[in-house]
């Protein structure tokens, strides 16, 4: 075998500008997305560093300071009906709230990705089954699933996560499937098949890594959806059980005092709103970032 040296393009150094550097710069050009990212970072930081940030216990009641307004006696956001510091409960409440959002989404993804890949890449019977099952899941309102699970196993964080995870399955499966189908037709996947690569290699080295960006976008949308869902479940008494604070159950217990002491409802409400907004803005930004036509 001889090496053919070609006085062509080949001898010239490659183009510069890897697009990885461009990522942050392109992202930075979208102020809403940057704002969303900042919001998400703040919420995550608050949840992680909750013990350092909170001055009071979120659980221990101080019956001498029940329903004090904001900026009173050292409680910046006031206290709730059991005299617990509202700010500390908000800070600790972010933990359960985020946990539900993230874990429910991870659960959905963990099931959806293999199912979606199998359905989209192999098509045929696997696809048929996957699609019919998602149709069935879609037909059940997720509240019904949550109520059912709570009724059988009793209300708990795990069941909230399970219910919300199942509720998100159909959407995630469909997205994973659509991505796998599109990638299957890409020349580089066809090239891998022609090369004689094993299915395992094609699925893990070609399909999965290239599905990550759209799935990340999906996650950034489904995390806030799960947070809202968990708030709703807590509100109905099916979610995280008191005294552990979550924004949902804070909102639920505040409803009795809504008229006279509105702040204990407003603060968790605003926290939920800002958090879901941040995730959604970030999601929109990521979607634009990964959309080749926007480059």
């Amino acid at each position, binding site marked *: 075998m001889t090496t053919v040296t070609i006085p062509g393009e080949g001898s010239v150094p490659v183009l510069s500008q890897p697009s990885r550097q461009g990522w942050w710069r392109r992202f930075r050009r979208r102020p809403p997305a940057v704002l969303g990212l900042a919001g998400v970072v703040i919420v995550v930081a608050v949840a992680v560093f909750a013990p350092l940030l909170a001055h009071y216990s979120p659980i221990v009641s101080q019956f001498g300071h029940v329903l004090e307004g904001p900026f009173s006696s050292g409680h910046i956001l006031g206290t709730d009906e059991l005299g617990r510091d509202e700010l500390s409960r908000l800070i600790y409440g972010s933990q359960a709230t985020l946990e539900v959002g993230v874990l429910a989404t991870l659960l959905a993804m963990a099931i959806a990705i293999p199912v979606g890949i199998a359905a989209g890449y192999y098509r045929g019977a696997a696809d048929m089954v996957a699609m019919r099952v998602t149709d069935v899941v879609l037909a059940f309102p997720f509240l019904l699933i949550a109520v059912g699970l709570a009724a059988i196993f009793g209300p708990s964080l795990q069941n909230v996560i399970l219910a919300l995870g199942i509720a998100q399955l159909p959407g995630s499966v469909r997205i994973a499937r659509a991505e796998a189908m599109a990638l299957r037709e890409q020349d580089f996947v066809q090239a891998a*098949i022609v090369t004689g690569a094993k299915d395992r290699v094609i699925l893990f080295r070609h399909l999965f890594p290239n599905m990550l960006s759209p799935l990340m976008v999906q996650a950034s949308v489904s995390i806030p959806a799960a947070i809202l869902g968990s708030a709703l479940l807590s509100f109905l008494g099916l979610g995280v059980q008191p005294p552990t604070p979550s924004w949902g159950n804070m909102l639920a217990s505040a409803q009795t005092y809504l008229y006279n002491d509105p702040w204990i409802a407003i603060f968790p409400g605003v926290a939920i709103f800002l958090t879901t907004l941040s995730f959604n803005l970030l999601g929109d930004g990521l979607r634009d970032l990964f959309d080749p036509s926007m480059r």
Partner: protein
Amino acid sequence: MTGPVLEVTDLRMEFRAPRSAGGRRVQAIREVSLTIGEGEILGLVGETGSGKTTVGKCVVRLLRPTAGTIRFAGRDITTMPARALRPVRSQIQMVFQDPYSSLDPRMTVGQIVAEPLRAHGRFKDLGVRPLASRAIERVGLSTQVLDRYPNELSGGQRQRVGLARALVLEPKLLIADEPVSALDVSVRAGILNLLADLQKSMGFSCLFITHDLGVAEFLCDRVAVMYLGEIVEVGSRDEVFGDPRHPYTRSLLGAAPLADPVAQRSRERSIMPGEPPSAISPPPGCSLNPRCPLADTRCSTEAPVQTEVSPTGHLARCHRIQEQMSLEVSHT
């Protein structure tokens, strides 16, 4: 082994159109037979929708043909199960048209070129790297590109990477599907020279699929012309380009503009009217008859068969060939 490397016999490929489009059958390949000898480059020439790419995909088994047989080095691979097919795959490799979508954007060039080696466990004690380096140097790139990602390379460089991936296993047969049609003229020249050089030094056979007659004439030993899922003419390069017999081949050659104003403006223009009909409802008789200047009543009722123009393997699928030939004999 002295037989042909690739022998395709009576290949047919039908697709079912989506139900929204009427759900009818589309005959992408109606009947294709071809052979490629050892070290031979066969050009498969045709316009959009002629079925040339489908033939290539059937040969590499990305598609399973509806009927017909594909023999590679004497073995029937038409319906070979996946497990048995894997060792055969190392012998048949493919280069794609689009240098952008044919390389996984998340893998480095080194990983891309090494993929076939890993798939077939061909790295012995050496490791993958030296073999990948040799393949990348063979296509005229420096080994520095091994650690780059495809999006850092130009179109021509990417196409060289695609070629390196296809040739790293030193296959017997290369399927090249329009490998230069997405490239600019000056870059295209480099890839064509490279293909010619590599074919000479490595000795592989090649099915070169293209719509560009100039490229086919430059590179190929033999040429097959496809129209509406059929090979209408096949022969050596000199026969097809120097003495085209099928009216469609003639019209193709006449239609491609020459890059020379004097020759282009003085040549006789005989432009074939109309456009290829839909493959869902091909016309009865000869598929070219609605557009053909020579067509008579027989052409619209009876499908022509391959007719020998010369004993060297120059064939054309046309009723009027015999008459043309006897005419020529009477003239001389």
